[in-house]
């Protein structure tokens, strides 16, 4: 937890009484498909909210359109289910005008990266105080199974019977490229990891982007199985922890090193000779270079060597704070606005009746 994170969170009123998960469940029936990964994320969010200890009337969930965007209806907080792709823009207006609110955006790979790509990158570069949960299932679910901007090339779907043609976005790479100050990735089925990442995101002052690999059991079932299956995951998943050497695999036998010639990152078998060369993860590094390189480790098709955890967590000025500061500065400099004086500004003349 950073100091500035504390400072911004302090603007949000605290809950008067101890909260439980039940307090965050709305009275609405949850209507995702049985077996959908969204249930797990909802449970994790509802379960972790009491830890934050914020007054729930000061928490707002804003979503766009898509399966995951029904999320706000199930949270007993303030919420808005808006229109396709626009949640970051709407949330920006809310967060920048109401610093006493904790504002969360729930979005999907289509909502955030296709129709709403522009709003996502601009929210990230501005560093608005938003927590963005990007549910990535690599498919369009609500429209019944077209490929998405994160689908692997060659994906056979209803709209791409001969295979999709376009290269996918890597949401973590995209976010880091868009100047994001906090970028993390987690998996729907790993409640503990998911909760830990959410907590760090909540503590972050500014925009936090959390990519959540989420299974669509209807249209893209098993898309992340390699990261979930115990045996395969050992080789596939790289757990990032700030300050720790980046090692994974059975008995931590593999590690990530920097190639001395190209500067790029590579996976190697750890040996006594190279053990001290294993990269130590620094999420707070001022430069995004290594975080970006880490985001490129995974094979987009097989998902082998997929890092999860917090890639990047740095402090930089928060848009809402800067905006509020300018208002304060203007009052200090010019005094509180006086409408009568404003209207009578400049050259005037008087007509006597």
């Amino acid at each position, binding site marked *: 937890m950073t100091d500035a994170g504390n400072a911004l969170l302090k603007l949000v*009123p605290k809950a008067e009484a101890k909260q439980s998960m039940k307090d965050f469940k*709305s009275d*609405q029936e949850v209507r995702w498909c049985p077996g959908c990964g969204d249930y797990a994320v909802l449970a994790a969010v509802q379960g972790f909210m009491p830890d934050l200890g914020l*007054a*729930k*009337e*000061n*928490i*707002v969930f*804003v979503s766009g*359109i898509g399966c995951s965007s029904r999320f*706000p*209806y199930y*949270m*007993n*907080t*303030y*919420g*808005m*289910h*808006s*229109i396709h792709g*626009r949640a970051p*823009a*709407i949330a*920006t*207006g*809310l*967060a*920048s*005008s*109401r610093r*006493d*609110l904790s504002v969360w955006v729930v979005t999907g790979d289509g909502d955030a990266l296709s129709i709403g790509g*522009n*709003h996502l990158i*601009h929210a990230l570069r501005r560093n608005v105080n938003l927590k963005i949960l990007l549910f990535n299932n690599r498919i369009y679910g609500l429209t019944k199974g077209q490929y998405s901007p994160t689908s692997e090339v060659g994906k056979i779907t209803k709209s791409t019977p001969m295979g999709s043609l376009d290269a996918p976005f890597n949401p973590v790479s995209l976010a880091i490229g868009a100047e994001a100050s906090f970028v993390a990735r987690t998996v729907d089925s790993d409640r503990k990891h998911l909760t830990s990442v959410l907590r760090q995101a909540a503590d972050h002052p500014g925009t936090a982007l959390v990519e959540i690999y989420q299974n669509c059991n209807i249209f893209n079932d098993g898309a992340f199985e390699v990261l979930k299956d115990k045996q395969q995951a050992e080789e596939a998943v790289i757990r990032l922890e700030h300050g720790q050497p980046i090692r994974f695999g059975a008995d931590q036998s593999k590690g990530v090193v920097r190639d001395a010639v190209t500067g790029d990152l590579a996976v190697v078998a750890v040996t006594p000779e190279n053990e001290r060369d294993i990269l130590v993860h620094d999420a707070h590094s001022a430069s995004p270079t290594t975080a970006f390189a880490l985001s490129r480790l995974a094979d987009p098709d097989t998902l082998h060597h997929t890092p999860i955890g917090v890639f990047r967590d740095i402090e930089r000025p928060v848009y809402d704070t800067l*905006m509020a500061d300018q*208002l304060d*500065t*203007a*009052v200090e*400099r*010019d005094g*509180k*606005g006086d*409408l*009568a004086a*404003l*209207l*009578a*500004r*400049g*050259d*005037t*003349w*008087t*007509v*006597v*009746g």
Partner: protein
Amino acid sequence: MTSQVSSEAEQADGALVGEQRKPAGGKDVRRLDRVIIRFAGDSGDGMQLTGDRFTSETASFGNDLSTLPNFPAEIRAPAGTLPGVSSFQLHFADHDILTPGDAPNVLVAMNPAALKANIGDVPRGAEIIVNTDEFSKRAMQKVGYDVSPLEDGSLDGYSVHPVPLTTLTVEALKDFDLSRKDAGRSKNMFALGLLSWMYHRPTEGTEKFLRTKFAKKPEIAEANIAAFRAGWNFGETTEDFAVSYEVAPAATAFPAGTYRNISGNLALSYGLIAAGRQADLPLYLGSYPITPASDILHELSKHKNFGVRTFQAEDEIAGIGAALGAAFGGSLAVTTTSGPGVALKSETIGLAVSLELPLLIVDIQRGGPSTGLPTKTEQADLLQAMYGRNGEAPVPIVAPRTPADCFDAALEAARIAVTYRTPVFLLSDGYLANGSEPWRIPDVDELPDLRVQFASGTNHTEDDGTEVFWPYKRDPQTLARPWAIPGTPGLEHRIGGIEKQDGTGNISYDPANHDFMVRTRQAKVDGIDVPDLAAEDPSGEARTLVLGWGSTYGPITAAVRRLRAAGVPIAQAHLRHLNPFPRNLGEVLGRYDKVVIPEMNLGQLATLIRAKYLVDAVSYNQVNGMPFKAEQLATALKEAIDD
């Protein structure tokens, strides 16, 4: 000089020349009731600034005035070409006037392109001041003059003053350490000085303005002031200008009060700030730059000490999105744009209709479709504002009629938005936005009270006696739903674009509920309290009504005055509320045999009127990017009456 005499047909909009007097030892001074001046030059010649300064001098002198800036969309079109010509027309008078005037009495042409582009609008007999320095063979050929128009007799019908403006300016500034080119740049101030002499304008304001504008470059400020004074002195000494003119202050035309000159966009900006104050809500603007609306973003950005937040978004959609988010949070939220931006915002406007949150959508209309004519005026977004969304999505529409009226119209749009919890369109246009007129500064204590009550507690009792909050339980009078802002304990609720169950606001796909909600949203807008429409007919004998909306008010009223002065009875009514229409509109229309609707589109209001009231309205249309001319309208109205 006959050129400065109003024609008889124009008497209603301005009478004839008055007395003549001759100051001892000086030149002739003639008194006029009104004058129309057009400054025209290259885009880089500073014509807008020159016009603005002359306007300020005129306003502070107490004349009534109306202005028409007209400039190309290109920032710097190729120098000396016809597309690069920028002009500023100013009409000022000793009585109340309504338009920037049909035809200039004086044209200041800074180069051959300016002469060529504007001469068609200048009536014979008018005065033309040309900068002869720019009439080189090459410059003339560039715009198709093979022979100099100053020498081929084509301007014989005009009173031409050939003045080497550049040479005189450079000569006047020879003591300054400036290159010839830099010194020549002040030629617009020389021209302004000359015109200021011709029309007895006060000069202190301009000198003060120049000192402030060039505060960091005092040398440039002094050079401009020297050029300005040299222009004045030139008028006083040279024999070419034998007469100067007085236009007395329009003291009797105005009610008592303190006045200033104001453009539509500035008045609209002030109206928004005032609305925030009167509603006791923080003002939040989400906007994306677009001509001719950007000035509102610029202006509001200057007033952060009023608690005004301005957010320059990544696109039009984010602009309105952020505004809607701020509205959810309890701000008085505004987005400003022009037609192409409205197209992009349409889906979010529909969401605002569904969410029933207050939101002002300011559309400064310009020529369309598509990019159209960004710097020219048009009224062709009416049907877009009225119907341009999916589903049944009614949005109230308010349209200001004059530049100063933009202030009151903004307050009125805000009143409707916060009272009825609805997005509201404020339809201004390029002509109102950039045009200016005197404005009686209102007493802020007399502005309308727009305060609202946020929801603070439960509003419904369940069958089992539980007290709950229903976000869509409506006020029985206004049909407005409660505005419950985040941070209010116990009122946590979710809203969205999916159809909602009446009352609870929960998602509902029930057919009967949807039918009810669609009708209820329509009924809410239809039921908005709007003042009755006043039709005015001093003769009591009119059989024809001219009905207008928005910025055509000035030209229509001027045309109506002309007809009435010529003994032709005609009734006039002007709509400020386009949705809903005033309740008595049908009755007003029914009083007349004929209804004529002039619009700067192909008949959009006429379409609405015909559909709703089954009235066979006559549409009179112009879509050339310019406001109607009073004379042209008077003729058209006369023809309609006689038809």
